[in-house]
């Protein structure tokens, strides 16, 4: 953590409102894009972004400054995004059980292909398939892939955020890529056959 960050943390811990505004301004894009990469829904990502800054504000006294502010915020964001995913999956399962027993619960909205606003126009269709495939990866592979590919973080930074080694990140990326290839091959094969 550099001097400017240390100063910002001290100001935040003193309850300085301007420092909090500075924090939000500096990291809102990072938090929002990370959340968007995981949950693949703009409203949910916006919700998570708000929750992340609220939690950061409330737990500032616990922040010891051992890691960079960005690393700390990345960890909160990933935790919240994965929590929301689990909650949604539980809700989906519950909806399925409700449907089995014929009770009239909330209508489940069919999964829509995610259209990331930052993807270049000519890549939109391929990116939608990739986002769909990403959803099927194990959490740690998905996190590594999202941080490296979408957020542009180096393997070192990804390792720091995930609290692991660079070798482990390399392995996660390699396995993630292999899995994505398999998933995408199956997807395109079925598409060609139909």
């Amino acid at each position, binding site marked *: 953590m550099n001097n400017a960050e240390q100063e910002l943390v001290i100001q935040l811990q003193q309850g300085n409102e301007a420092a*909090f*505004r500075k924090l*939000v*301004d500096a990291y*809102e*894009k990072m938090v*929002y*894009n990370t959340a*968007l990469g995981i949950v693949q829904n*703009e409203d949910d*990502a*916006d919700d998570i*972004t*708000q929750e992340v*800054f*609220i939690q950061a*504000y409330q737990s500032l006294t616990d922040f010891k400054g051992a890691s960079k502010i960005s690393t700390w915020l990345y960890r909160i964001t990933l935790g919240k995004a994965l929590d929301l995913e689990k909650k949604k999956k539980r809700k989906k399962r519950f909806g399925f059980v409700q449907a089995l027993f014929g009770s009239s619960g909330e209508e489940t909205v069919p999964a829509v292909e995610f259209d*990331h*606003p*930052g*993807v*270049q126009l000519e*890549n939109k269709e*391929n*990116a939608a*398939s*990739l986002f769909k*495939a990403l959803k099927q990866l194990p959490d740690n592979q998905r996190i590594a892939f999202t941080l490296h*590919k*979408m957020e542009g973080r180096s393997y070192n930074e990804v390792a720091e955020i995930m609290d692991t080694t660079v070798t482990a990140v390399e392995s996660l990326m390699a396995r993630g*890529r292999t899995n*994505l*290839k398999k998933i*995408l*091959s199956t997807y*395109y*094969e079925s598409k*060609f056959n139909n």
Partner: protein
Amino acid sequence: MQKKDLIQQRVEAALNSMDGMQPATPEPYLLTRIHARMNTREVTVWEKAVWFLSRPVVAIVLCLVIVANMMVVVSNQSRQSNVAATSQGDDFSYTVATIYDSENVQP
């Protein structure tokens, strides 16, 4: 063969589709929305309970109470087993002086 190549091409294209991707922009006035959320956010009973129980002092006190409780239970059990042994002795008149004892005082 041609189909397989085509699939491979599509897979590679999909994997590279994030190249040159621009970061998305969040909705404006985030700070205002955060403040509004902080002010209106209702803390649920469960959140309150978790917050209260997760405080170190409360956790330590709870642990002490549990340990003290266990000690009382264990000591009660051992006392009960002693009482049971004594009452068994009573049943078989090991200790109670009988009428014969008072009559035969002379050796």
